[in-house]
């Protein structure tokens, strides 16, 4: 070893991988804009509580005399078909929709991660079993499945009827349904990545020193599949918000009067000739969210891939 084949110290300054990625993400303009849009959306929905208190409006109280009122100084986006403030309902609905998107993605992602990791790492019969199960889930037609899950009577599962008819039950029902049908993509993605990672020499080196499967998965496989997981996760958020609106459209989603963008859009379908704006607003928010999350996914893909230029 001579001093010659050492790079100069300045180049060798250890730069944390995450700082480097953040720098690359910041360089991705549409990704940064999308992140800003998403932050604004979250702030917008979080403003619902304070604004309702400030204005003294109950978003659930109906006023049949002011149905379809046009926008005014008191009600900036007017009133909906039951005489409720449209703006406040959009804000509250956004909280539900964004939360459903994040929580379902998280639960489905963790389930898919666990299944994909064990199938890919252990291989053999476990792999065959888990992957045929996954194929089965993918082969099931989505709509009938959603309808069946949506029709499950929670009181028969041992929940109190008070809970079964509350808004929280509707929220968790949606989250669980979506997580149950949406983990398959993550599982296949993680399995494929694990299959290639477990043959890497650094994994063999760890095994040769006596590393347990759990150690290898935690120390080597997981950090190295983080990239595709994060990217796939962002793409899932957008899909899940749309799925929630499908569920609400079928009548199994969030139970009225609790608003979500999905059930607001669903509710406005039949009013599209009398009050088109009521369909346009929630549709627009879903659209913006999905686009924003997709662009963030794009940006992350760029940030995590050292070979991508620009």
């Amino acid at each position: 070893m001579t001093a010659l084949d050492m790079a100069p110290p300045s180049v060798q300054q250890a730069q944390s991988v995450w700082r480097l990625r953040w720098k690359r993400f910041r360089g991705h303009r549409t990704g940064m804009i999308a992140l800003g849009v998403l932050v604004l959306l979250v702030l917008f929905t979080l403003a619902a509580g304070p604004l309702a208190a400030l204005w003294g409006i109950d978003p659930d109280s109906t006023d049949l005399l002011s149905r379809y009122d046009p926008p005014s100084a008191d009600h900036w986006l007017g009133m909906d078909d039951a005489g409720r403030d449209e703006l406040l309902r959009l804000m509250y609905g956004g909280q539900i929709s964004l939360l459903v998107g994040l929580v379902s993605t998280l639960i489905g992602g963790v389930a898919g991660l666990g299944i994909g990791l064990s199938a890919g790492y252990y291989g053999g019969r476990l792999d065959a079993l888990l992957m045929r199960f996954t194929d089965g889930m993918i082969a099931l037609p989505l709509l009938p499945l959603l309808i069946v899950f949506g029709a499950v009577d929670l009181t028969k599962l041992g929940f109190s009827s008070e809970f079964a008819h509350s808004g929280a039950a509707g929220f968790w029902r949606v989250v669980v349904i979506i997580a149950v049908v949406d983990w398959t993509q993550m599982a296949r993605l993680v399995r494929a990545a694990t299959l290639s990672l477990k043959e890497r020499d650094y994994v063999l080196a760890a095994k040769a020193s006596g590393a347990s499967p759990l150690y290898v998965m935690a120390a080597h496989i997981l950090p190295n599949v983080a990239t595709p997981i994060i990217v796939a996760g962002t793409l899932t958020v957008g899909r899940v918000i749309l799925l929630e609106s499908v569920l609400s459209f079928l009548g199994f989603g969030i139970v009225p009067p609790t608003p979500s963008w999905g059930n607001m859009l669903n509710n406005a379908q039949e009013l599209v000739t009398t009050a088109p704006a009521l369909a346009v607003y929630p549709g627009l928010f879903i659209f913006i969210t999905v686009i924003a999350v997709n662009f963030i996914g794009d940006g992350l893909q760029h940030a995590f891939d050292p070979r991508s230029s620009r």
Partner: protein
Amino acid sequence: MTHPVLLKVEGLTKHFGGRPGLFRAQRPVLRAVDGVDLVVHRGETLGIVGESGCGKSTMGRLLVRLLDATGGKVEFDGVDLLSLKGRALTAVRRDLGMVFQDPWASLDGRMTVRDIIAEPLDIHRAATGADRRRRVAELLDVVGLPASAADKHPHQFSGGQRQRIGIARALSLRPRFIVLDEAVSALDVSVQAQILQLLGDLQAEFGLTFLFISHNLAVVRNIADRVAVMYLGRIVESGPTQALFDAPRHPYTQALLSAIPVPDPERPRRRVVLKGDVPSALAPPAGCRFHTRCPIAQEICRQTPPVVTVGPDHTAACHFADSPLTAS
């Protein structure tokens, strides 16, 4: 070689495929390693040479228990290595090290050099805190890297430096036996020399025993005390490096040696050119495995597998190892 035996391999076999699974059809059996007998003495370097696909890497992995053998026996310092399980296996792994070919693939790019080198220590809970830091600093010093390297990531180093990191990792539990699988093949020639020098120094300093797997005969001649030549999953010839290179007894060894480029155009050369390709390990030929390509093959070679001819320290699996036909 008067040193005591550290590793004794008898009839080591590894077959891939075969058994059909629940959703998998029966696959043909690939005989990657098919009855290898070897002896490695304490403190020596045994070179394993052979073409790609001859099973030398598979054998190296069997010896550090990265793969489970199909059959045979491996005795490491009096312990039956292949039958070990659980804790006993984990314990014996401290004595076994491995260095890989590709220094870009063998280090996890997401870990710091400190974590990479200390990984075996972490797995065996051998050192923590200040002790761990001290051990990493020592190991870096031993392989000729500055202590400041510990907090950097692998991508900040050159190929030779990365291979030094890989060697430091293999040394961290102070093993007695290290398998070097093409350890210098991915490096520039000038860097190869440095790494070989380092390996020689380490061997002298720590009394290490090496199994040096390579397809590069010149490198093996440089580092190995004894050499074993592999062909289609079997050892065809083994002996002290000098004797084997000066007077190869097996026609395959003769062909390999005659293919080494000589940097002197004036020197007369006798090339032994082999015909055809290596037969598939899925269906190795009957009799002597080399008879399909052997320049001196006779009828007996097609029918009877040759018995290893034992000289004082030199073996060759050829019916004509002693006959004038093979004299070079």
